[in-house]
């Protein structure tokens, strides 16, 4: 059922407040947009598309928390799409360091499974999504090249 204009505006303000709360308390500690995207995607139920965050839902309510998480997810996505290739390579490299996985193994798995495909917001437009996936593919190739280059250098040394 459609909400009256005044209720909609009040709800919008609540969503904005919840999103701000999420940015200050949680997302501010996650420096890289790639990490934020993955974190926010992990709060989403893949079957329903609904986002869940107990703390935020307790402070506001489930519906407001869901919308705030979705908004922050879109923000992280936009930021990541706007990153240059050099920045993206640095972000993937930083992310690898937090996973406690070997870079070679990580690159092989990300290439094979392409897990980033499920991390985009539902409303993401096709072209931005295509650009991000393409950039990630190239970023993995760049990282692999750096890895080979580094290990060859170490062997020579």
């Amino acid at each position, binding site marked *: 059922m459609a909400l009256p204009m005044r209720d909609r505006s009040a709800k919008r303000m609540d969503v904005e407040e919840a999103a701000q709360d999420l940015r200050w308390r949680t997302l501010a500690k996650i420096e890289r947009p790639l990490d934020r995207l993955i974190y926010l995607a992990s709060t989403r139920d893949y079957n329903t598309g609904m986002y869940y965050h107990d703390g935020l839902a307790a402070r506001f309510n489930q519906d407001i928390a869901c919308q705030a998480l979705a908004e922050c997810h879109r923000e992280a996505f936009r930021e990541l799409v706007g990153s240059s*290739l050099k920045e993206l390579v640095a972000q993937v490299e930083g992310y690898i360091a937090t996973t406690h996985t070997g870079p070679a193994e990580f690159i092989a798995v990300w290439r094979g499974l392409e897990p980033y495909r499920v991390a985009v917001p539902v409303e993401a437009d*096709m*072209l931005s999504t295509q650009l991000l996936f393409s950039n990630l593919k190239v970023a993995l*190739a760049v990282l692999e*090249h750096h890895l080979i280059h580094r290990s060859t250098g170490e062997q020579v040394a």
Partner: protein
Amino acid sequence: MIQLILFLGVGALLLISLFVLARRGAQAEGGAEALLEARRALSSLQGELLPTELVSRIFALDDLDYVTSSTSEDVRALFLAERQRIARSWVKQLRRQIVSLRNFHLGSARLYARLNFSTELTLAMEFAILLFACGALDLALRIRGPYGAQRIVDTTTAAAARVCEISEKSLGFLRPGNASPFGNPPTARNSAAL
């Protein structure tokens, strides 16, 4: 006898009125669909395909410089192939939405929008330039790669921004609260040339 003729005449008139009303209803329904289709095309252009940040990112020279200076020839080839694919996908989607908008202007726009003759003429010219530019851009991207057609990219985005501005006026009465959930606010100024 006269009564019967009168009765049949009134009946025929009623049937004709009913037929005319039914046709008008169907036309209005089709018109509403055309309007929504045009609004969607305009939102997609302004919110998804023309924002300066996205177009600049697709054709960003700093990405090419980075790949050229810090990776191998294989990675550079992969990068160029990927960017070419994305750039051509952008042109394809742009063309599709432009055609959709043009169809609206050719068919239903004059029923709703009060465009004067000179604006309609300008619009027709812009559509022609734009569709030609899309074709030329696709060809240039295929032949010269993603970084060989910067001038045509500029021309195309500028012409698309002008078309959006005029279309925005003709669709102004049908402004949804949130036309673009994902992209930038739909203003033609956002989508100005690079």
